[in-house]
C-alpha cells in the first residue's frame, strides 16, 4: 500500500517535472482559473510556465503573474482574457489568437471595471488588443500589441479606452492594428507609445484634458487625430511618414484649446490638418516650435479656421508649405506674435540687420496653387515643367499674382532649435552605392564595348602580293 502510494507520488513528481518542460503540450486555461479560484483575493498567483488554451475570465481582485513564460491561446474564439472586476494586475503574459468576428469585437485583454494594471504583456494575432470598457484609473504600460493580418478598415483597435478616466497609457508598442483610440476618457497620460503601420496612431474622440507626450507614430495612415476633444497638449511627439488616404501627421477636428508644441512632423502627406479648430469663438490654438518638414503639404486648413497662433515653427521643404482646402485665406490666424514668426525654407527675403528676423514679411503667392484651389483636378500637373512655366509667368507679370493665403510679418532667419528623439532611418548604403557604381560601370563598359574599334590588321607580304593599283 505504502509502495503503491510511493509509486503514484513518484509518477506525479515525474509528470510535474516533465510537464514543466513539455511546453509543447498545451494545457487548458481552466488550470489558471482553478489557480485563481484557490487563491485569496489580493494575493499574487504565479502561473506555471506553459501554453494554455482557451479563454480566461478573471472575477477576483488578484495579481496574476506570467513572468513572460506563459502563453494563453484563445484558439480563435472570442476574447482571450476578460477582467470582470477591479484591482486586478495582469502582468507578463503572451496572449494570442483571439476571435475576429466584427460584432463581438473579441479582444486580447478586456477589462470591464477599473482600476486594473495591465503591463508587460505581449498580444499577438488579436482582433482588439487591450480594451477598457470602462475601466478608469487604470495603468496600461509596456505592452506590445500586434494585430491580425486584415485589411486596414477591418482590423480592431490596438488599445481602446472607453469612458476610462485618469488612465495611464505609456510605453506600449502597437503594430498593424486599426487605431489606438480614446473615447470619452479624460485626464489621461499618454506617453512614449510607439504605433506603426496602423490606421490612426492616436485617436481621440470626445476625450478632454490630456497630454500626449513623446509618442512615436510612424507609417500609419494618420499620426494623431483629435476629434471633438478639448484642452489637449501634444508635446514632443515624432510623427513620421504617415501617408494614408488622408495622411495627416496631426489632424484636429473641432477641438478647442489645443497646444501643439515641440513635435516633429516629417514626411507625412499632410504635416498638420486643421479642420475648424478651435471651434469656439473665444478659444485659441497654439502651434509652437514644431518642425514641419518634407511633407507634401506642411499645413492644410479649412477656410473657416481661425484663432490659431502659429509661431517658432520650422516649415522646411514641404512640397506645399501652407495651404487651404478650396479657396480662402488664413488671415484670421496669427503666423507671428510679439515680433516672432516661423522659419520658412522658401522665404525669399533676407535679414540684413541681423536681428534674426527677415526684413520683409513672408507672403507666399503661387499662381499654380491658387489655380489648384479653383480647380483641384489641376494637381495632376504638379511636378511638371508646365507648373514651373505658370509660376514664372506670375513672377514676370505681378498683376497675375494671386493674394497670399497668409502673412508672416516676422519670418525667422534661422530655424529654431528643436530637441527631438527622431530615430534615424538609415538603411544600408551598400545597395545604393552598388547601384550607383553599376550605372556608371554599365555606361562606361557598354560605351567602351560599342565604341571600341579594332586596328586594321597589318598586312603581310603575301597579302600585298595581290595586284596594287596605284
Amino acid at each position, binding site marked *: 500500500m505504502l509502495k503503491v502510494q510511493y509509486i503514484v507520488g513518484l509518477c506525479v513528481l515525474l509528470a510535474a517535472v516533465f510537464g514543466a518542460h513539455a511546453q509543447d503540450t498545451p494545457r487548458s486555461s481552466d488550470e489558471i482559473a482553478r489557480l485563481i479560484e484557490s487563491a485569496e483575493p489580493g494575493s499574487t498567483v504565479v502561473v506555471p510556465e506553459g501554453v494554455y488554451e482557451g479563454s480566461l475570465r478573471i472575477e477576483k481582485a488578484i495579481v496574476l503573474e506570467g513572468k513572460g513564460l506563459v502563453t494563453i491561446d484563445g484558439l480563435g474564439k472570442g476574447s482571450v482574457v476578460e477582467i470582470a472586476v477591479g484591482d486586478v494586475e495582469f502582468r507578463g503574459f503572451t496572449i494570442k489568437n483571439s476571435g475576429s468576428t466584427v460584432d463581438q469585437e473579441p479582444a486580447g485583454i478586456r477589462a470591464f471595471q477599473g482600476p486594473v494594471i495591465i503591463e508587460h504583456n505581449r498580444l499577438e494575432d488579436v482582433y482588439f488588443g487591450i480594451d477598457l470598457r470602462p475601466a478608469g484609473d487604470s495603468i496600461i504600460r509596456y505592452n506590445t500589441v500586434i494585430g491580425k493580418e486584415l485589411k486596414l478598415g477591418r482590423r480592431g483597435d490596438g488599445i481602446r479606452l472607453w469612458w476610462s478616466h485618469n488612465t495611464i497609457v505609456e510605453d506600449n508598442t502597437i503594430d498593424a492594428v486599426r487605431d489606438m483610440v480614446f473615447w470619452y476618457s479624460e485626464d489621461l497620460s499618454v506617453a512614449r507609445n510607439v504605433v506603426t503601420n496602423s490606421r490612426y496612431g492616436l485617436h481621440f474622440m470626445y476625450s478632454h484634458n490630456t497630454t500626449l507626450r513623446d509618442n512615436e507614430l510612424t507609417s500609419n495612415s494618420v499620426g494623431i487625430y483629435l476629434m471633438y476633444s478639448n484642452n489637449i497638449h501634444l508635446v514632443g511627439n515624432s510623427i513620421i511618414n504617415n501617408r494614408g488616404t488622408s495622411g495627416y501627421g496631426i489632424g484636429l477636428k473641432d477641438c478647442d484649446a489645443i497646444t501643439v508644441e515641440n513635435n516633429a512632423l516629417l514626411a507625412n502627406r499632410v504635416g498638420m490638418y486643421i479642420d475648424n479648430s478651435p471651434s469656439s469663438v473665444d478659444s485659441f490654438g497654439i502651434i509652437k516650435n514644431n518642425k514641419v518638414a518634407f511633407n507634401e503639404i506642411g499645413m492644410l486648413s479649412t477656410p473657416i479656421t481661425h484663432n490659431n497662433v502659429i509661431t517658432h515653427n520650422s516649415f522646411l521643404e514641404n512640397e506645399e508649405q501652407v495651404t487651404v482646402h478650396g479657396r480662402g485665406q488664413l488671415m484670421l490666424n496669427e503666423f507671428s506674435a510679439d515680433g516672432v514668426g516661423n522659419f520658412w525654407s522658401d522665404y525669399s527675403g533676407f535679414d540684413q540687420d541681423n536681428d534674426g528676423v527677415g526684413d520683409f514679411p513672408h507672403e507666399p503667392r503661387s499662381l499654380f496653387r491658387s489655380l489648384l484651389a479653383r480647380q483641384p483636378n489641376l494637381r495632376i500637373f504638379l511636378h511638371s515643367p508646365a507648373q514651373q512655366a505658370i509660376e514664372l509667368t506670375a513672377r514676370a507679370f505681378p498683376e497675375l499674382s494671386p493674394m497670399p493665403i497668409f502673412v508672416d510679418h516676422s519670418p525667422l532667419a534661422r530655424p529654431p532649435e528643436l530637441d527631438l528623439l527622431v530615430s534615424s532611418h538609415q538603411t544600408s548604403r551598400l545597395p545604393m552605392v552598388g547601384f550607383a557604381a553599376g550605372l556608371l560601370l554599365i555606361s562606361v563598359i557598354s560605351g567602351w564595348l560599342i565604341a571600341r*574599334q*579594332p*586596328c*586594321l*590588321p*597589318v*598586312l603581310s607580304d603575301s*597579302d*600585298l602580293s*595581290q*595586284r*596594287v*593599283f*596605284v
Partner: protein
Amino acid sequence: MIKASHVTKKFGNVVAVDDLSFELGKAESIALWGSNGAGKTTLIRSLLGIFPSTGTVSIHGIDVRKHGKRARSFVGYVPQELAFHDDAKLGSSIMFFANLRKVSHKGAAVALAKVGLQGHEKKRLRDLSGGMKQRLALAIALIADPPIIVLDEPTSNLDASGRGEVIDTLCQLRDDGKTLLFASHRPDEVLSLAGRVLVMEKGKLIKDITPSELWPTESRIQTMRLYLSMGTEETAATVLRDAGHAVNLNGNGLCVSVPRNRKAEPVSVLAKAEIEVRDFEILEEVQGDHS
C-alpha cells in the same frame, strides 16, 4: 550585268530619266556622256535602287526594285566626291563599310593597300586630299571585290594628277575583268576607259555608240574652255552642238572638245551666232587611245 529597260524617273513634273533602256555586259565598260542635268546621276541612282523609279533594272539578274539590297551587293559605287563623316578616321570608315559588306578587316586593309592608302588609317577624312578621298571611295567600292563598279563623275573634283591616278586604277580594273559603268563629261576619260558611250540629253538616251564614233577624229582631241558673256552659255552650247561639237556645260564653264586642227571652229561658229567669246583656254591634250 546590268539590264535596264524603260527606266523613267520623275521629280514632280520634271522627267529626269525618260524611258531609258540599255544593257551592260560582263567586263564591258560603258560611259554615260552628257551635260549636267542630262540625267546621268539620276540614272545611276535609279540603277542602284537608291530611289524608286519605273521600268525595270536588274543587276546580275536580280531585280533591283525587289531585292535592292542583294543587287547592290554586286556593285561598288564611287560617288562624285566621297561624302562621308568628316570627323571619322580613314581606318574606322573603311572598317565600317567592311562590316556593312561582311568583309573581314583584313579585306579592308587589302582594299586600302590596293589603292595605296595604307599607313593613312589614323587620318581624318577632312584632312585627306581630293585624290585620296576618291581613292578611299574606290577602296570602299572594292572591299567586297564586286564584279561591277559604278562611278558617278569620279574625277570631276580632282586636279590633273589625281585624275590620272584614278583613271589608271580604273583601266586596271577594267583589264581585270570588272564591269564598269561611269558618268563623265571628259572626253579623255571616255576615250581611255569606255568601250561604249551612252549619250544622254534631257533624260533620254540619244546615242549608244563607241567613243571613236562620237569623236571621229581619233588621233588627237583637245578640250577648249570658252569664256562667254554671262547668260549666253546655254545658247552657245546649243549652237555648238548643232554644229556637231561635243559640248559640256557645267559649273566650270563651257568646254568643247575639238580635233586639234580645228580649234578655231567653235569660236567662229559662235561668232556667226553673234555670241561673244571673251577668251578661251586650251586644256591638256589627251591620247585618243590610252592603252
